[in-house]
């Protein structure tokens, strides 16, 4: 607002210090001195440029929040479309920095049409080149759907994403809420799942965008020598009791390569549907995607939201040829009326579809147990897994042996004298496990390829992924 009213000279002086300046923002995102604008700086409300991230070529654009709050008009949208189309032609990632109030009111329907053309360009690019959005300020109305159409959304603390703002919400529904409550990082990181990454501040948001872009742009190759001698009993990271829940994320971090002081794992949507963990990282020097049940949250059950979260991630990995590693420890699908009515059948079907259609190498490791429909959904052999491994004593079954016996032998158990009932249940469960469950049976019928030594987990997983022919799905990444 002030930029519009200010005399031209002052505006230029502001530009150098204004933290919202698009040149400054692109300079923060891209390698030093690598920014080459695609067009002269103008008053269109957007700036598009070529540049590099850790040496890899990328296209980038930034809405210009110093002009009308970054509102999108015909000219600015044309720059954004050019950036996206150029990225597709040159097969490089495209990163968008967002700070925009939406379509320019003054340009009317023409602006709406232009914003729609940005959406169409993003959809053309979907699944062909990685598209990463960083929301640095408000991204309202039309500007909300821009990031939402891309593969990954990173939100800075000042990021606000909503279709209609607090004033409209209040006048229509009577609900009173501020911009942050409605569409801030907490709302989208925890409640809606719109944000894949919630950053600590604007520089952190750029740093996270750089790391994620690099995982796509420089995927590396499997170097089995790097993991051959890496021997550590990873099963020791699980609790002793098979019934006890644990946080799977330390295990995921350990399975993946170290990156400096920490792990290379970049978790996505960590606080939304936390019963499944998804993210990118490197294994033996190659970028991989990880999908893991997290027993710490809801026992690691699959449910409506987690199935949808995993589906979209699986399709993204497949679209960009990122091999997948699936860590299964799942007691089943969460039962409940709200689950059924919330579409657990419809959303669960997405996960089956996503894995079954994937052509990228994808290896499953059953660490403890995989029961029922959730077993199938976690990239089972029947869905076309490249390999299915299990750790010793893992159990694969329709349900736990004791629960199964309770149904199959209900009458026999009821007829038994009470003092003998538990012993009978134990004996029947053992028998049931021998014929119907247990990893031995799973291997005999070929749904598990091998029980692997947990100490060689990293090597065996990398070896299986490396041995498979590289694949890449020919499909877009619709925001499921």
């Amino acid at each position: 607002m002030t930029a519009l009213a200010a005399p031209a000279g002052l505006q230029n002086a502001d530009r150098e210090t204004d933290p919202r300046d698009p040149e400054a923002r692109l300079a923060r995102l891209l390698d030093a001195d690598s920014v080459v604008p695609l067009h002269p700086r103008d008053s269109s409300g957007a700036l598009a440029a070529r540049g590099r991230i850790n040496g890899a070529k990328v296209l980038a654009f930034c809405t210009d929040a110093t002009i009308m709050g970054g509102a999108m008009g015909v000219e600015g949208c044309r720059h954004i479309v050019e950036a996206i189309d150029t990225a597709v032609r040159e097969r490089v990632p495209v990163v968008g920095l967002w700070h925009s109030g939406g379509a320019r009111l003054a340009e009317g329907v023409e602006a709406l049409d232009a914003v729609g053309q940005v959406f169409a360009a993003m959809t053309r690019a979907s699944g062909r080149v990685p598209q990463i959005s960083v929301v640095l300020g408000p991204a309202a109305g039309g500007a909300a759907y821009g990031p939402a159409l891309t593969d990954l959304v990173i939100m800075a603390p000042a990021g606000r994403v909503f279709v209609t703002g607090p004033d409209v919400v209040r006048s229509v529904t009577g609900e009173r809420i501020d911009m942050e409550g409605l569409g801030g990082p907490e709302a989208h990181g925890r409640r809606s799942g719109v944000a894949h990454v919630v950053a600590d501040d604007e520089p952190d948001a750029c740093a996270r965008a750089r790391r994620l872009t690099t995982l796509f742009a420089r995927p590396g190759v499997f170097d089995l020598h790097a993991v051959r001698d890496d021997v550590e009993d990873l099963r020791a990271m699980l609790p002793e009791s098979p019934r006890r829940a644990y946080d799977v994320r330390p295990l995921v971090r350990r399975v993946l390569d170290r990156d400096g002081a920490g792990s290379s794992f970049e978790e996505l949507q960590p606080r939304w549907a936390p019963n499944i963990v998804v993210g990118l990282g490197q294994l033996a020097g190659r970028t991989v995607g990880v999908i893991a049940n997290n027993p710490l949250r809801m026992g690691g059950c699959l449910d409506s939201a987690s199935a949808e979260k995993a589906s979209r991630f699986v399709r993204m990995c497949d679209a960009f040829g990122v091999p997948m590693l699936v860590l299964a420890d799942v007691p089943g699908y969460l039962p409940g009326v709200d689950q059924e009515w919330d579409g657990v059948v419809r959303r669960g079907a997405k996960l089956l579809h996503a894995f079954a259609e994937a052509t990228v190498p994808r290896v499953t490791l059953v660490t403890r147990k995989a029961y029922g429909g959730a077993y199938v959904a976690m990239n089972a052999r029947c869905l076309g897994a490249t390999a299915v491994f299990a750790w010793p004593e893992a159990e694969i079954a329709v349900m736990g042996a004791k629960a199964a016996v309770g149904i199959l032998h209900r009458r026999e158990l009821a007829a038994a004298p009470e003092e003998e009932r538990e012993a009978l249940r134990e004996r029947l469960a053992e028998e049931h496990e021998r014929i119907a469950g247990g990893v031995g049976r799973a291997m005999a019928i070929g749904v598990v390829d091998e029980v692997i030594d947990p100490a060689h987990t990293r090597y065996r997983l990398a070896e299986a992924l490396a041995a498979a022919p590289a694949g890449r799905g020919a499909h877009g990444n619709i925001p499921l």
Partner: protein
Amino acid sequence: MAEEIHAEMVANVLRVEVAEGETVDRDATLVLLESMKMEIPVITEVGGVVARVAVNAGDVVRRGDLIAVVE
């Protein structure tokens, strides 16, 4: 600031591991639930003082039920 911790799913309360007034660290287990044949700890995402424990061992909690308040 008070952080309310709610049940994420239907479960039996197996054990309550903290008392009201107790100081807890972030990621501490407040209550142990049993559901889907799993023992599932309810952890706090903030450290502080346990202002309230809303469940007892043996209770059944439904999704969204208040389990505890940490201040």
